């Protein structure tokens, strides 16, 4: 990603864009911060902010037309914030907060032609930068303002004229004649023509000049036009005139200092609007002052109605986005900077690795920001350039290798006919957790579909994709393709939404359809059940864009006599359970928060069509069913309640489940693979010990191998009182430690732990890495 790509990505997140009030203000007054100060009783800070943003504050506050109030999102929710009245309150009740700092005088002098609001703003801005400014006016210096703003209080004029007296501004009474501009252009470094007070001198309309600079030609700028109402009346918009004064002042400053007039001024005209969700915002009526103006308490209450506009729609929904305490725009910047680190800590690795790549934010974001794309590209870069943390996805990729390896994988045509019009692809997690149901549904498909239904037990490769390991994904895809082509390129019947996605990438020329759509076609419509039990349908994030999948699931639920209810954030906006993007491996605690959060979104028993949704929600104590628990050909028990509380297969059991399913599948072909070798030692592992081990990604198989190895070498420690042994085994990048005791019935495992550090010469046995 280069800088321009980063900017393109950042632009999709509006959280740092201006709220509507500020975006419509030609002076970009930070109304939101102003309100925050007043609401918190910090009137002096509020005044400081006014003085920082507004030129001629006393005059401007008195005459401003406050476009911010029109734009305020509170407008239809109790009435727009009373910005003008609050500004008056602050100005009246607090002393000035900024001291005028005299600048060293500059050589170049500026002429302002016409003492209208725009002209005075130019004088105000540039005199504060040390430029001597002569303001040429007809009649009384204040007449132009009085003419355009008849209600302007004399006190406001007095206040600003007093300030003008402290700056190098000189008011010169003058006669406007046609030759005046020409003369001033010669005498002064730059000239500003106020198009309200001195319009007769320059026959230009707003559209005739570049709005970004208000530059006319040479050393002349102009601005401050009046507007015309639809009925033809002349109307001066104070905010617009003052805004043009400021724009022109910047141009004039650049003119006089020899800088480019147009470069890097995007921010002045950046009017991207911050998206602000209004759902659930209650209407609160405007606070009206008891007297003519607000007192401090009234002002605080009125300012407290400010919505403090912000977007954060994705952040509120996603536990991952919330955890890092900022928002996608800053995350994009952090991930970009992370990639640029050559020596030092990659502090944003955790950011890139914590995303479930589920795409929910993209659906919720009004601008379609994709954290998934951002994080996936970051991971691909991390792998390619070798700074992906070793431990992040190692277990998941080993798991993938086991699922696609010789002990679990098989790829065959229909056992009865040898034909293979279709190929059932249950996915490696369903195969791991629900072998018997996979077998039964396959038999059902074979009975009911013509042309033969083969089976492919394998991982789809999505873990490699999620890990950003493109070479591994491609290599795996090539193996899938070879198997698929050898079966005659059959249509794939896919039972996992993530597999659908990965297979579409791996085999773009394959026809893919979900198992649920097939089953929905094959199962008859059922009579509606009165008082049908209600389930909350959990759409898997992989099915976000699989409309057919989602519709078939709902239909099947109905056919099974249940009423499926869509929870909040359903369908395309569904939330991930924490399995997506391998968060369960890289950041298990993050993944658990995602699962718990999703579980809390579902008021009824969860009905899942993805086994990982089912198992991860169930691990959070949520009653959860997989669709196979309901269907007539696969339901294990008639009581859905029992199935919804059925325990979740752990990591060790899942691997064993894949091996067992392969044996069962081969049995359909009349083949009996030799039984696995009996273990030399019988392990006794209590459920809670196994669960603790698996939380650390230590499998029963790892412990088996470790204890057998330790016993072979005899290199172990003994605690005399308990009789417990401790020993270690390093089969690969990880050293496993096991605390155990040998008894007549077997080897009792008390605990296991692991680390990746290597202690050479000190640890046994020495299968060194």
């Amino acid at each position, binding site marked *: 990603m280069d800088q321009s790509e980063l900017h393109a990505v950042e632009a999709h997140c509006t959280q740092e864009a201006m709220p509507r009030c500020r975006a419509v203000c030609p002076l970009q007054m930070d109304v939101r911060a102003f309100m925050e100060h007043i609401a918190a009783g910090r009137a002096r800070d509020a005044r400081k902010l006014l003085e920082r943003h507004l030129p001629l504050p006393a005059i401007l506050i008195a005459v401003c037309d406050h476009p911010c109030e029109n734009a305020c999102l509170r407008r239809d929710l109790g009435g727009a914030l009373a910005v003008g009245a609050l500004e008056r309150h602050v100005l009246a009740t607090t002393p000035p907060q900024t001291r005028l700092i005299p600048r060293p005088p500059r050589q170049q002098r500026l002429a302002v032609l016409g003492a209208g609001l725009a002209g005075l703003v130019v004088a105000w801005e540039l005199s504060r930068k040390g430029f001597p400014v002569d303001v040429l006016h007809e009649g009384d210096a204040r007449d132009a303002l009085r003419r355009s703003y008849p209600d302007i209080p004399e006190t406001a004029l007095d206040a600003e004229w007093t300030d003008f007296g402290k700056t190098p501004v000189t008011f010169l009474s003058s006669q406007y004649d046609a030759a005046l501009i020409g003369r001033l252009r010669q005498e002064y470094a730059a000239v500003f023509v106020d198009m309200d007070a001195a319009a007769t001198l320059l026959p230009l309309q707003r559209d005739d000049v570049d709005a970004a600079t208000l530059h006319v030609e040479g050393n002349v700028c102009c601005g401050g036009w009046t507007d015309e109402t639809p009925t033809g009346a002349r109307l001066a918009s104070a905010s617009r005139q003052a805004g043009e004064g400021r724009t022109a002042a910047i141009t004039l400053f650049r003119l006089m200092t020899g800088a480019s007039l147009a470069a890097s001024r995007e921010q002045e005209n950046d009017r991207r609007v911050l998206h602000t969700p209004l759902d659930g915002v209650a209407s609160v009526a405007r606070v009206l002052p008891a007297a003519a103006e607000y007192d401090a308490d009234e002002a605080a209450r009125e300012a407290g109605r400010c919505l403090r506009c912000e977007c954060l729609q994705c952040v509120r929904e996603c536990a991952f986005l919330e955890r890092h305490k900022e928002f996608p725009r800053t995350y994009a910047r952090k991930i970009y900077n992370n990639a640029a680190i050559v020596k*030092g*800590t*990659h*502090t944003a*690795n*955790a950011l890139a690795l914590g995303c479930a790549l589920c795409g929910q934010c993209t659906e919720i974001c009004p601008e379609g920001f994709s954290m998934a794309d951002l994080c996936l590209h970051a991971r691909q870069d991390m792998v390619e350039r070798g*700074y992906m*943390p*070793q*431990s*992040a996805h190692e277990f998941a990729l080993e798991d993938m290798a086991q699922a696609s390896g010789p002990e679990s994988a098989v790829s065959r045509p229909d056992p009865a006919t040898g034909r293979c019009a279709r190929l059932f692809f249950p996915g490696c997690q369903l195969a791991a957790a629900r072998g018997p149901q996979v077998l039964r549904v396959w038999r059902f498909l074979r009975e009911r579909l013509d042309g033969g239904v083969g089976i492919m037990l394998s991982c789809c490769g999505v873990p490699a994709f999620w890990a950003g390991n493109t070479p591994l994904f491609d290599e795996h895809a090539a193996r899938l393709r070879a198997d698929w082509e050898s079966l005659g390129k059959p249509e794939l019947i896919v039972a996992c939404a993530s597999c659908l996605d990965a297979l579409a990438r791996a085999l773009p020329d394959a026809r893919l359809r979900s198992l649920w759509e097939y089953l929905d076609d094959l199962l008859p419509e059922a009579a509606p059940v009165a008082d049908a039990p209600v389930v909350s349908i959990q759409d898997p994030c992989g099915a976000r864009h699989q409309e057919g999948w989602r519709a078939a699931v709902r239909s099947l639920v109905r056919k099974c006599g249940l009423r499926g209810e869509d929870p909040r954030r359903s369908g395309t906006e569904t939330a991930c359970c924490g399995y997506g993007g391998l968060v369960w491996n890289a950041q298990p605690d993050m993944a658990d928060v995602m699962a718990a959060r999703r579980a809390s979104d579902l008021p009824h028993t969860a009905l899942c069509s993805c086994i990982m949704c089912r198992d991860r929600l169930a691990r959070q104590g949520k009653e959860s069913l997989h669709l196979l628990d309901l269907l007539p050909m696969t339901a294990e028990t008639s009581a859905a309640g029992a199935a919804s509380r059925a325990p979740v297969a752990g990591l060790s059991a899942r691997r064993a489940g894949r091996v067992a399913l392969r044996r069962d599948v081969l049995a359909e072909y009349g083949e009996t693979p030799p039984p696995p070798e009996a273990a030399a030692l019988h392990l006794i592992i209590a459920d809670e010990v196994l669960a603790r081990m698996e939380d*650390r990604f230590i499998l029963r198989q790892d412990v088996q191998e470790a204890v057998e190895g330790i016993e072979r070498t*005899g*290199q*172990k*420690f*003994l*605690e*005399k*009182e*308990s009789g*417990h*042994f*401790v020993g*270690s085994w390093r089969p690969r990048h990880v*050293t496993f*430690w096991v605390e155990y005791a040998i008894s007549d019935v077997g080897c009792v495992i008390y*605990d296991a*732990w*692991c*680390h*990746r*550090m*290597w*202690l*050479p*010469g*000190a*640890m*046994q046995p020495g299968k060194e890495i």
Partner: protein
Amino acid sequence: MSMEPNYGPDAGDWFCARCGERLEQRKVQAFYMNSAFDVLLPRCPSCGLTLVPKSLAEGKMAEVEALLEDK
């Protein structure tokens, strides 16, 4: 990056099962990703077999591993 220097066994009175010797706190080196650390761990004075207590593996060691992986 510093590791706390001295880690005893988590609990109990540990002996080398092969040599029968009581473990002693001895200095050993731990390596990971081109970094090396000196650390005092329970070790058999006779054969040198060294114990990594669980509290160390899951505490400081895991922390340092994660830090080094983010380098």
